[in-house]
C-alpha cells in the first residue's frame, strides 16, 4: 500500500469554525491561551509551595557543584570585600567621608552581590530551563521568581557574616537592625520585578543575555558599592538624587541606614523604595504575563 492510498488517509479535517464549535459544545479549553492577569497571579500564589520546592532544588543544585558547597556563599563575598578594600580603600582611597569603610564596603558588596546574582541568573530563567519548560506545565513566572528566591536564600549566610562584621567594627546594636528584613523585602520585590522583565526580554532576544553582565558591571560602579554617592555628588543634587534613588543603589542605602550609626534613617528613601518595589514587581508580572503563551516556543 502506498502512502496516501484510500483507506488510510486521515478523515477530512474539520474547518476551524467547526472545530471551535465542537470544542465549545463539549466544554474543551483552548491551549496556549493566556489566562486573565488576575487568574495568573492567583495561580502563582496557589503554586507557592512549588516555588519553594524549585528554589530549594536550585540552591541544592548549585551547592552540589562545588566541594565546599555552602561555604562559597560566605567565602565569595569575603574575598570580594578584601579585594575591593585593597583597591578602593587603600589604593584609590574612595572612602572619603565614610568613617567605618569596612562596614560600608561589606554592605555594598553583599547587597549588590545579591542584586547582581539574581539579575544575571534570573534573566536566563526561561532560556536556561527550556527542558523544564517543555516538560512540565506550570505558570512560567515561577521560574524567574524561584531564581530570585534562590539567590535570596543563598545571600542569607553572607547577611549573617555582615552582621558579624558590623559588630566587629563597633557598630552599635540598635532597634534599626529590625528594619533589615524590610529593606531586604523591598530589594527582593525590586529584583523579582526586574528579573521577570529581563527573563521575557532574553527569551525573545537571546543576544541581550550577553549585555546583562555589562550593564550589571556598569551599575556596580555607579551605584555606590565602594563610595558614598551622597558625598561624591554633594554639589550636584540632581545627579545625587538620580544615582542614589535608582532601584539598585537604594537597597544598599537602606541596609546601611539599618546597620550603620553614621547613616541616619531617611523616611523619604524608604517610601521611594516601597514605591519601586510595588511598581517594578507589578510591572514585571504584567510584562512577563503578556508573553505567557509563548515561552517554550521553538
Amino acid at each position, binding site marked *: *500500500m*502506498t*502512502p*496516501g*492510498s484510500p*483507506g*488510510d*488517509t*486521515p*478523515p477530512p*479535517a*474539520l474547518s*476551524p469554525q467547526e*472545530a*471551535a464549535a*465542537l*470544542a465549545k459544545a*463539549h*466544554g*474543551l*479549553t*483552548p*491551549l*496556549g491561551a493566556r489566562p486573565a492577569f488576575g487568574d495568573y497571579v492567583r495561580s502563582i500564589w496557589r*503554586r507557592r*509551595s*512549588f516555588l519553594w*520546592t*524549585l528554589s*530549594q*532544588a536550585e540552591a*541544592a*543544585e548549585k551547592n*552540589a*557543584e562545588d566541594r565546599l558547597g555552602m561555604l562559597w556563599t560566605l567565602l565569595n563575598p569575603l574575598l570580594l570585600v578584601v579585594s575591593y578594600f585593597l583597591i578602593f580603600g587603600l589604593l584609590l582611597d574612595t572612602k572619603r567621608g565614610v568613617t567605618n569603610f569596612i562596614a560600608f564596603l561589606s554592605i555594598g558588596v553583599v547587597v549588590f552581590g545579591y542584586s547582581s546574582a539574581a539579575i544575571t541568573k534570573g534573566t536566563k530563567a526561561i532560556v536556561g530551563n527550556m*527542558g*523544564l*519548560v*517543555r*516538560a*512540565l*506545565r*506550570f505558570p512560567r513566572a515561577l521560574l524567574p521568581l524561584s531564581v530570585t528566591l534562590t539567590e535570596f536564600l543563598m545571600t542569607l549566610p553572607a547577611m549573617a557574616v555582615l552582621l558579624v562584621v558590623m559588630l566587629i567594627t563597633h557598630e552599635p546594636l540598635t532597634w534599626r537592625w529590625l528594619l533589615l528584613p524590610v529593606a531586604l523585602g523591598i530589594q527582593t520585590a525590586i529584583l523579582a520585578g526586574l528579573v521577570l522583565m529581563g527573563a521575557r526580554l532574553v527569551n525573545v532576544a*537571546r543576544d541581550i543575555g550577553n549585555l546583562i553582565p555589562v550593564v550589571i558591571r556598569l551599575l556596580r560602579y555607579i551605584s555606590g558599592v565602594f563610595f558614598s554617592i551622597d558625598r561624591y555628588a554633594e554639589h550636584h543634587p540632581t545627579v545625587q538624587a538620580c544615582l542614589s534613588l535608582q532601584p539598585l543603589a537604594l537597597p544598599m542605602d537602606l541596609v546601611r541606614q539599618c546597620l550603620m550609626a553614621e547613616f541616619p534613617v531617611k523616611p523619604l528613601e524608604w517610601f521611594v523604595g516601597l514605591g519601586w518595589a510595588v511598581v517594578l514587581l507589578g510591572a514585571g508580572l504584567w510584562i512577563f504575563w503578556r508573553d505567557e*503563551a*509563548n515561552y*517554550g*516556543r*521553538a
Partner: protein
Amino acid sequence: MAAPEPKDSTPAVICSHVDITYRVQGAKKMGPVADEDDESLFKNLFSRGRELATIQSVEAVKDVSFVAYHGESIGIIGRNGSGKSTLLRSIAGLIPPTRGRIWISGEPSLLGVNAVLMSKLSGERNIYIGGQALGLTRAQIKERFADIVDFSGIGDSVYRPMKTYSSGQAARLRFAISTAATPDILMIDEALATGDADFKERSSAKVAEIRQQASTVFLVSHSNSTIRELCSRVLWMEKGVLLADGPTEEVVAAYEATLPKKKPPAKPKPLPPAEA
C-alpha cells in the same frame, strides 16, 4: 481493537490545522558577508572564524488536524524527525503552535524520554518537582512517594542524582511520576521502549487502567508491537504531515509496508519477543 471514532464519546483533544515552525538559531558555514546592515556586521565581528549565526525555519508539523475522544489510546508513528514528539508536546501545551488551535479537556501530562527534569538533583527532589508541577500538593506526594518509587522499581537509587541513572531507570521514574496523579490526558513519548519486560507489563496495565478512567492516552513509539498492544487508533506522521489516521492494524500495516524489509510484516502477536 476499538473503533477509531466512537461517535457516542465526547472529544478530549481537538487539533485544528496545527503548524509548528521551529526557529533554529545556529551557525551556517562560510556564509557570504553580503548584508552590510549593522546586525550582520556586529555578528561578523564577534563570531569565530567565518561562521555566521543565521536563523533558519524548520517546519516540524504541517497542517495537522484530528479529534481524539475520551478513552481512546492513540499511537503516533513515523520515522525519526517526522514531527511526532513535537506534535505531542504541542498537545501537552508545552510548545505553542505557530498556527492553528488546540483544545483539550482537563490537564495534560506528558511523559517524554527527553523530559529533562533536573539531572543534577536526586530522583527524590525530581519527584517533588514533577509531582507539584502536575498539581499534586507536597502532602499528596509524600503520601504516594513510596508507591512512585515502588512502581519505578529504582529502589534506593531515588536518592542519587538523576544524571547517574541509566536511561531505563530515568524513563521508569518519569513514567511513575506522570502517572502518580491520574492525568486526564497521558502522553508517553518513547518512554516504554527503555524498560525491561517486567516494567513493560506493569506499565501496560497502568495505561489500561488510565484508559478505563476515561482518560485519553497518546503514545509515541518506534516499536510497532508496543503500538499494536496498547493502541486502538494510530496517527502516522511523515515529514510533519499527518499521512494516515485510522484503526491500528490498517495504519501500522501500511506504515510497515513502506519500511525496508527485514522480515515479512508480522501479524500482531500478544507478546512479541524482542523490540527494535
